[in-house]
C-alpha cells in the first residue's frame, strides 16, 4: 500500500472511532478512572513522588481538587517547567480527555511520610474531585529508576 493510502486508512478508522466515542455523550457527566499509577522508591522518608493518569470518558470536565494518603502527612500537586516546580490547588480533567502526572511533568508530592516506602509495597491514596465522587488508588512502589515506557 502506498503511504497516503495507509494514512488515509488509519485516519478514516480513527475518525470513525472518535466519532462513535463522542456522539451522544456530549452532555453526559464526568466518568473518571485511574491507570498507570506508581511511586518510585524514594531516597528517604522525607519526600516521595507519585505518578498516575486520570481518564475522563464522560462528556463533562472535572477537576482534581485534592489528594490525601494515610502514608503521608501531606500530598500536594505540582507542575514542573524547566526545573522549577509549582504547586497547584487543582488540576483540570477535560471531557473525553486525560490528566497525566508523569516524571518530568506534573507530579504528586508526598511529604512527612510515616516510613520510607519500599519497592513491592503499595501506598493507598484518595483523590477528591470537584464533581465526581472520590476515588481510592492502590499505588505500587516501584524501583527508584522505574520508567513506565520500559516497565522496569
Amino acid at each position: 500500500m502506498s503511504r497516503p493510502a495507509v494514512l488515509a486508512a488509519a485516519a478514516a478508522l480513527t475518525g470513525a472511532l472518535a466519532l462513535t466515542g463522542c456522539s451522544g455523550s456530549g452532555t453526559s457527566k464526568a466518568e473518571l478512572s485511574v491507570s498507570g499509577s506508581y511511586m518510585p522508591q524514594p531516597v528517604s522518608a522525607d519526600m516521595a513522588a507519585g505518578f498516575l493518569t486520570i481518564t475522563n470518558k464522560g462528556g463533562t470536565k472535572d477537576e482534581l481538587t485534592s489528594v490525601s494518603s494515610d502514608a503521608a502527612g501531606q500530598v500536594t500537586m505540582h507542575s514542573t517547567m524547566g526545573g522549577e516546580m509549582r504547586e497547584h490547588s487543582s488540576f483540570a480533567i477535560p471531557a473525553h480527555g486525560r490528566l497525566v502526572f508523569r516524571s518530568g511533568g506534573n507530579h504528586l508530592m508526598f511529604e512527612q511520610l510515616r516510613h520510607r516506602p519500599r519497592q513491592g509495597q503499595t501506598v493507598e491514596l484518595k483523590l477528591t474531585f470537584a464533581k465526581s465522587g472520590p476515588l481510592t488508588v492502590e499505588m505500587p512502589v516501584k524501583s527508584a529508576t522505574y520508567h513506565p515506557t520500559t516497565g522496569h
Partner: protein
Amino acid sequence: MRKKTFAAAALLAAATLTLSACGGQESDRSPVSSLSQESGSSGPATVLDQPWDKPGLVLTDTHGKKYDLRKETQGHPTLLYFGYTHCPDICPTTMSNIAVAAQKSLTPAQRDDLRVVFVTTDPGRDTPAALGSWLKGIDPRFIGLTGDFKTVQAGARSVGITVEPTTKDKNGKLVSVHGTQVVVFSPKTNAGYVLYGENATVDDYIKDLPKLVKGAKP
C-alpha cells in the same frame, strides 16, 4: 524501516485525530511527545561540538571539607549535576539512574575511577550533613557539594545550566530549582563534552557509561 515509519505516522495521526475530535483542551497533554522519544534514533545524549571547561568551583563536601572540583576530578570521568534534596521527582531519579547504571555496567575499578558530583542549588537547606545522608541513600561514593549560592549559580551558568535561588511561594513554602541536564567531563581532556537531559533512563546510562568512563562519545 519503511514499515516502522508507516506505523509511527499512523499512530501519530490517530493520536492527533482522537484528541482534536473530542475538544482540543487536552492537546497540551498529548501523548505525541512520548511517542517521538521512543522512535528517536539519536537517544538522550547530546555531544557538544565545542566542549566546555570544567567549572572552577571550590565548595564544601559532605564531610565539611573544602573541595576543589577541577583538582579533585582531574583525569577522572566526571558527571556533574545541579539539584537539591527537597526534590521529589527528577533529582533523585537522575542520581538513582546513574547509581544503578554504574553498578550494572562498570567494573569495580571503573566505578572507583568515576566521579559523580551533585552540587546543591539549595544551600540553605542542603547542609553538608543533609546532603550526605541523602546521597548515602543513593550511592555513598557520590560527592555532594554545598556553598554560596552565587558561586554555584555562576558555575552552573559556565556549563549552560540556569538555576535560580530558593524562593517562598504564596503558601510560604520553599521552592527550589534544579538543572535540567547532567554534564559529562572526559578523563582525557577534562572538558565537558556530553549532556544528558532529564528524559534519560537507567537503560541509556547503562548503555553509555562504559564509553563515557573512557572519554569516548556515546
